[in-house]
């Protein structure tokens, strides 16, 4: 799995690529931790994410909580069908701002 970070002012986007599984998900946690302190908006771009397991979900939820605690915004975008299935089955598609590949942030 590879994670690339892009920042624009106080907004940060993490492009996550590959498999977000038990072995690799701590890397996402580390990337979120490494975000600049002033980050007020976090976007996880899952355009190239092929797979997510519960450990990956936990990291996504941890990132959401972190942003919520500092009154920031949090979104997951470009979520493919397979990854979306996992969000849907766990009910997080309703709890978080999750957008499928076709949707855009307005």
């Amino acid at each position, binding site marked *: 799995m590879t994670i690339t970070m892009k920042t624009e002012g106080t907004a940060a986007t993490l492009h996550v690529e590959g*498999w977000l*599984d*038990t*072995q*690799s998900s701590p890397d996402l946690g580390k990337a979120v931790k490494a975000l600049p302190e002033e980050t007020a908006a976090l976007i996880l771009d899952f355009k190239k994410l092929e*797979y*997510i*397991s*519960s*450990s990956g*979900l*936990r990291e996504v*939820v941890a990132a*959401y*909580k972190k942003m919520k605690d500092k009154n920031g915004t949090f979104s997951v975008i470009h979520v493919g*069908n*397979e*990854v979306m*299935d*996992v969000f849907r*089955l*766990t009910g997080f598609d309703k*709890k978080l701002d999750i957008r499928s590949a076709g949707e855009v942030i307005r």
Partner: protein
Amino acid sequence: MERNEKLIKTKLWQYLLPSIMMTAALQLGNIVDTMLVGNILGADAMSAVKVGMTVDHIMEIPGYVLGVGGSVAAGILLGKRKRDEANRVFSVTLTVSVLCGILFALLSVTSPMLAKALTGGGSLLRDVERFVFVTLLGAPVISLALQFMSYVAVDNNPSVASAYVIVSNVINLALDYLILKFTALGTAGAALSTVLGYGIAMLVLIRYLRSPKRMLRYVMSFGGGKDRKHPGEDAKQGRREGQAAGAFVLAFSTGVPTLLYMIFLTLKDLGLNTMIVRLIGNDAMAVYTVCTNVVLLVELLVGGIIGTIASIGGVIYGEKDYFGIRSLVKHVLLYSYAVLAVLLVILLVFPEAVVALFGITGGALLEMAAAALRIFVCSLPFYLLNKFMTTYYQSTEKTKLSGIVTSLQTCVAILPLAVVFLFAARAAGLDLLNALMAAFVFSEILTAVTVCIYRKMKYKGQGFLLLPKREEEAVYDISVVADLEEAERVPREIMEFCQAHQVDAGRANLLAVAAEEMLVNIIRYGGKKADTIDINLCITEDTLLFRLRDNGVPFDPTDYSADTGEYEIHGIEVVKNITDRMQYMRVLDLNHTVIEMKRGCRES
């Protein structure tokens, strides 16, 4: 890493020893019993006991059939939490069995007639009569014993059941020696020690009766009471009698395979004993008795090994773990034939020494017995194969095939062959006893060949084990060490495997997620013992069946529920949401989890 045999082999060894010990205790009692009669009373008495055993077999039929059938039926009812019905089955079969025993005891006055019918009035008459008389007189005790032997094991007390079998055999043998050596009771003493053995050993059953784990209780109300105080009591009694009849029918129908086996065994004994005593003579009967005890010796040595097919094989077959089945069969056949090979060498090189153990120590009889035994033992490799097939096919839901092997091996092949061989030998002026022994060899070969032909006709294109061919179902079969790196690799391979077999990408992805969650759970929480995981994915026409077997601490995921907070995620809960069905069994001291998902088709 390919699928390996570690878990199956470990279980085979774990189950092998107790299985061998139980079989050994049972068969050793029978063999030493015959040896004592042969050594103390002589070859004729040994023959007489063998002839009289036909009555013993018939007398045991109600106890065996209702005991085995009733205990299986009661076990199933207990599993369904229908304790009242289970109690009714237990009570009805116990009562009917003991009543049959009392009826047999009353029939003991007919023992002179029975002995005459069995022996044709020859020199064995008196010994057979004495044996049959005491055997029938003790029928109520034996009937009761047979009931408890079956029920106690099913009713959560297998160790008490084993202890009862072992203690009764030990008492039987001790009394055999004392009574045969120091009294003039003769063959009656042999029967008496058996009855007393089973009777006295019932003290062991106190442990069962006082056991807190005991579920079954004797209920008196199954047939209605005498005190009718209400007008509706007649109808109530009618209903109770109907329930009692239903319980009896249930127990009896469950015991039908046992009944057939016992009928075949009795017919074989009756037919062969009559032929031997009347056509060949008492000496031949003594030799035949030795041969049947050699078969018991084979049972003693390999019965336990083959028994593991019944205890482990059925479970892994139920899981469609065909690799596991093949591995188990390979080891069972390897071990049992290795043991038999050693035994065969001993029997072929030193037949005189074996025969001498049964009190035949010299003269023409010894020579005759040694020659006959050498021919007879040639049947043993085929006997073992047939024995294996009976157990294997029964454990893998090929009951009919198993029944064909049993009926051929027990009776249908040997009786006609014995008649043909004896009359052909008589016409050709050959030795009748050796001809009979050859009939045994051919009957075992005929059984194996007939079953082989039937199998090839009925199950065209399938192999000996009748397992589906690899091509029919796409199977991903692998063993992994309990390590997080494996938990990363396996889901990827599952995804690739699914996609290679045209499984819908979404389903493949969810299955990979489920696999990862389950593996991680075992690796993290399985404990120190959890070092190996067998994984099997079977893709059928419409289903994805994913099975996991691990040696970690007992964990039933179907019973798992977590206090999930709004933003908490539990892997097992995720799996439950993903899958259509989840099953769990703790068998063979291993966790077996089966996950089922609808397959779906790949969108083009």
